[in-house]
């Protein structure tokens, strides 16, 4: 067992523990900002470590954790998300002076949980990863002590999260019962014998549990309320990190454990995808709060990403990874602007964004670009991501063509509420003409994220080349 394959997790774990202890030891009066800087450096180190071992393949802990293109790429996404959350939260945490240290190490533990979930190829480790991630997210969501919305969001997220995990566990138990093992590859072998209704029910329960994490429609009810209630950096982290982790493990599960049942679950996922896209887009049409709007847009994007799983081929899997990579930049950029606007004016209503173009042209330009990338307008990343997903789906062919058309029409409908925000910023006159300042750190994050959104023309080929260079995961058939 070569330990350096595990280096990213080790770095993050030690970082979290050090911060925990420091937070505990340092007296309340000491300013915790430096802890943030320290954490950032640690994360950069973790990122470098992951890039260093990129491309290598291997098993850790005797098959519990798999190291392959899929897990490493998702780790990069999680670390990038964590870095951005740290940058966004830096000024935001003025609102909650006492808990800055907690925020930092909870984010790191959540990051650790995501990395484990993405890498694990065995049911119990998946459970551990998900629980570690969720348990760190619950306090993060509720960390604004005095704020009623934050606590309500935490409550809803906690109850429904546990409920979903319970359902998920029940499914895992059933599958364990039928196949006698919890390792995904062995499950695939064990399932061959008799495909009885109990097994399909077990699969569905797993799907329900992951559906909750990914925000698929019948299980999405928590998403709008939690996204609106939680502090915005945490919402950003949820929208990008937790969703990506959900997709990572769901991808691995479906591709390695259940290729035999593909014919049945493909149809379920098709229905779920259409439902998710359409519900997310149509519900977002009339939103007045920018965070709720981005919540429903996140749901809609979960619907689009599901197409990659349905297409069930190498292109589909690579497409999901690229799509979430592009989605990371667009979403974090959008949330950065929301934070900057909230920090300056304290409001999250879209109507208040009127005339932002005059008050702060840079913010308006960045938000416009991020929203357009989410809408899938060329030449931004969203467009390439969607196109790559559709390519994967059409490689499978058959009724997926109608799914692609529905998705394309959905992105046309989504254009309405994205452009509506742009309309408010660019077309309507500003309500009060005060200059709107945003902190240099936020501007830096914006530059990074918008660069990620704009430069798709150039990094699309190298990235997908790397993704499709060697096989994404150990799934036997996926050559």
């Amino acid at each position, binding site marked *: 067992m070569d330990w350096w394959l595990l280096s990213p997790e080790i770095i993050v774990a030690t970082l979290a523990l050090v911060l925990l202890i420091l937070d505990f030891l340092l007296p309340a009066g000491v300013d915790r900002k430096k802890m943030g800087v320290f954490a950032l450096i640690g994360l950069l180190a973790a990122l470098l470590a992951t890039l260093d071992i990129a491309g290598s393949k291997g098993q850790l802990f005797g098959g519990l954790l798999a190291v392959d293109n899929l897990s490493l790429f998702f780790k990069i996404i999680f670390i990038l998300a964590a870095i951005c959350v740290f940058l966004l939260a830096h000024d935001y945490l003025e609102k909650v002076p006492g808990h800055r240290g907690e925020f930092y190490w909870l984010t790191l533990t959540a990051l650790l949980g995501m990395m484990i979930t993405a890498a694990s190829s065995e049911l119990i480790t998946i459970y551990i990863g998900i629980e570690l991630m969720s348990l760190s997210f619950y306090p993060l969501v509720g960390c604004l002590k005095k704020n009623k919305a934050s606590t309500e969001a935490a*409550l*809803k997220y906690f*109850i*429904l999260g546990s*409920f*979903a995990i319970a*359902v998920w566990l029940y499914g895992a138990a059933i599958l364990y019962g039928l196949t006698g093992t919890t390792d995904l590859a062995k499950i695939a072998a064990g399932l061959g014998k008799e495909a*009885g*209704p*109990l097994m*399909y*029910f077990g699969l*569905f*329960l797993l799907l*329900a549990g992951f559906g*909750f994490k990914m925000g698929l429609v*019948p*299980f999405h*009810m*928590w998403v*709008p*309320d939690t996204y609106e209630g939680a502090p915005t950096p945490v919402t950003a982290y949820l929208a990008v990190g937790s969703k990506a982790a959900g997709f990572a493990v769901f991808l691995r599960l479906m591709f390695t454990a259940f290729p035999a049942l593909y014919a*049945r679950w493909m*149809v*379920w996922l098709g*229905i779920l995808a259409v439902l998710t896209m359409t*519900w997310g887009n*149509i*519900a*977002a*049409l*009339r*939103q007045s709060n920018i965070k709720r709007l981005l919540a429903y847009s996140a749901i809609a994007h979960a619907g689009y990403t599901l197409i990659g799983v349905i297409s069930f081929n190498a292109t589909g899997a690579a497409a999901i990874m690229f799509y979430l990579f592009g989605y990371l930049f667009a979403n974090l950029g959008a949330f950065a602007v929301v934070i900057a606007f909230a920090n300056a004016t304290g409001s999250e209503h879209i109507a208040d964004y009127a005339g932002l173009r005059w008050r702060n042209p840079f913010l308006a330009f960045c938000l416009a670009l991020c929203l357009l990338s989410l809408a899938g307008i060329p030449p931004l990343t969203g467009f390439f991501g969607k196109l790559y997903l559709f390519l994967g789906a059409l490689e499978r062919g058959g009724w997926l063509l109608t799914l692609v058309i529905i998705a394309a029409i959905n992105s046309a*409908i989504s254009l309405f509420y994205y452009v509506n925000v742009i309309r408010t910023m660019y077309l309507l006159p500003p309500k009060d003409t005060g200059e709107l300042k945003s902190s240099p750190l936020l501007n830096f994050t914006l530059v990074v994220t918008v660069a990620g959104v704009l430069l798709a023309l150039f990094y699309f080929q190298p990235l997908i080349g790397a993704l499709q260079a060697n096989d994404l995961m150990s799934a036997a058939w996926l050559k």
Partner: protein
Amino acid sequence: MVPYAWLITAMPFIAFLIIIGVTYRRPLASALVAITCTAVSLMVSLSVLVAVIGGQTAELSLKWAEISSFKLELGVLVDPMSAVMFVVVSTITLLVQIYSIGYMHGDPGFSRFFSFLSLFAFSMLGLVSANNFLQIFMFWELVGLCSYLLIGFWYDQPGVALPPPAAGMRAFIVTRIGDVGFLIGILLLASAIPTLNFNEIFAAAEAGKLNTTLLTIAAVLIFTGAVGKSAQFPLHVWLPDAMEGPTPVSALIHAATMVAAGVYLVARTMAIFAAGPDSLLVVAYIGGFTAFLAASIGLVMTDFKRVIAYSTISQLGYMMMALGVSGAVTAGMFHLTTHAFFKALLFLAIGSVIHAAHSQEMRDLGGLGKDMKITSLTFLVGSLALAGIPPFSGFWSKDEIVHAAFASGKVGLGFLGLIVAFMTSFYIFRVYFATFWGERPAHQHGHHVHESPPTMTVPLIILAVLAVVVGWVGTPWANYFAAFLSPGEHHGGGVEGFTVMLMLVSTLIALAGILLAWAIYGRRHYDIEPLAEKSPGLYAFLSKKWFIENFYYGVIVPYGAVGLARLCAWFDRAIIDGLVNGIAGVVGGIGVSLRRFQTGYLQFYALIFFAVVVIAAVYLTLFTGLSAGI
């Protein structure tokens, strides 16, 4: 001179460009430029005529574009028919332009008028010289444009019966309806044989390569173009309205040249009509009926300019009848030539009356003979020619037509011709006597009328001379005109008894018409039409122009065009747009209901979650066995 034939067409266009570009500010200069260019083209056309008489014909052609092996060309076809038309068109244009100097004197748009006249001359000459269907159709529409521009020339005046631009618009659209038929005819021919060149198509038609039904339909369709342009029934309504334009325009365009284009077209494509014989029947009967219709309306018109307009329609009907009946071009073309001169004369004469008396209504005119010697004399010559009194030109050409009708066995048309001849002589002499004889109306006594200036009277005299001389070219004894036009066939060698008898009969009929007109209008001035008292019903029917115009402008335009258009516009806004906004509204509504679905109750969310799981459990356990799919 034949190889320079294209100069005839080019000169007026050069004049048009010079006037627009250079001399737009100086009116007189523009007039001179226009006249010199027309004079040059007259000279060249005369020399071409001489050359063609000498037996020389030519077809100059320029490849305009070649598109996937389909050649489009522009060319000049010089043969007897076009040579005659060159001379006719350029002479009359020259005379009208000279006349216009006086008539349009002091008008702000003087040079604009001359530029349009030159543009018209260019289009007409281009039409006459065309050697393929595309070119004839192009100049066909350009001629329509010039008539639209010239009718609506005084665009800011209220006009006599309706505003000039409205009259121009009517003219353009009604002729366009005809043009559509013509276009479809061309397309039909082009689909049968992949060329538009006249000679190639006519050769194929004569050689019988194209089936006759196709040719007949194509011929009739081409004839619809002629119906539109030469104001035959049912598209004749625009010509009387075209009288809103200045009188020189009426003289040039709506008497001599443009309206004759339809006759020229039928004559030029006679090979197709001949190949599909029943199309000639259509031409003959429409021509005949139009002649009768227009003549009957002409009897009662109080606006004398419109009387002459209806007379033009009637005479054009005659020409069409001639073409349709004889299947040969000579009779029609000969009447066209003579008619061009005496009808232009009549229009210019009534123009000079209007110029002097500032009105064209019967109740204001009367007893002008004494003060306007030349105009009344020339008008008399024109009327005699129109009525068909020997030795005037109208007699020879009209007699030939009636003779051809009887000779071809269509006796009904022949008698119709004679009746129309009687009505023609009656209504033209009604105008003559009512205008120049009798005494001045009561309310006009103080108003002193004087003769028009020489620039107007000189052309009148020239035309009067021509109106007499031109007829002698085609007398039955020595029909040089027919020999010139179609050298092949034999022409009226001896003069049988029947032709002499016919000549006598038609002269008597014409004289009877004149006497009747003199009896009624010669001595007394009438304010109200005598016919109105005797038979009000007939008078009402005729003065309402057989209710055709009421039907067109009262029913078809408001309901057929504008009404349906408003309906379509409403349909477009309400239904299609409504549908689109409806869908958007529905989607928005679903959005709102989905928002309300998000109640905020924790347990409601858990309920949905659990309900989905339970439904899946029930479904999977019970139905998996049954349905293979979900």
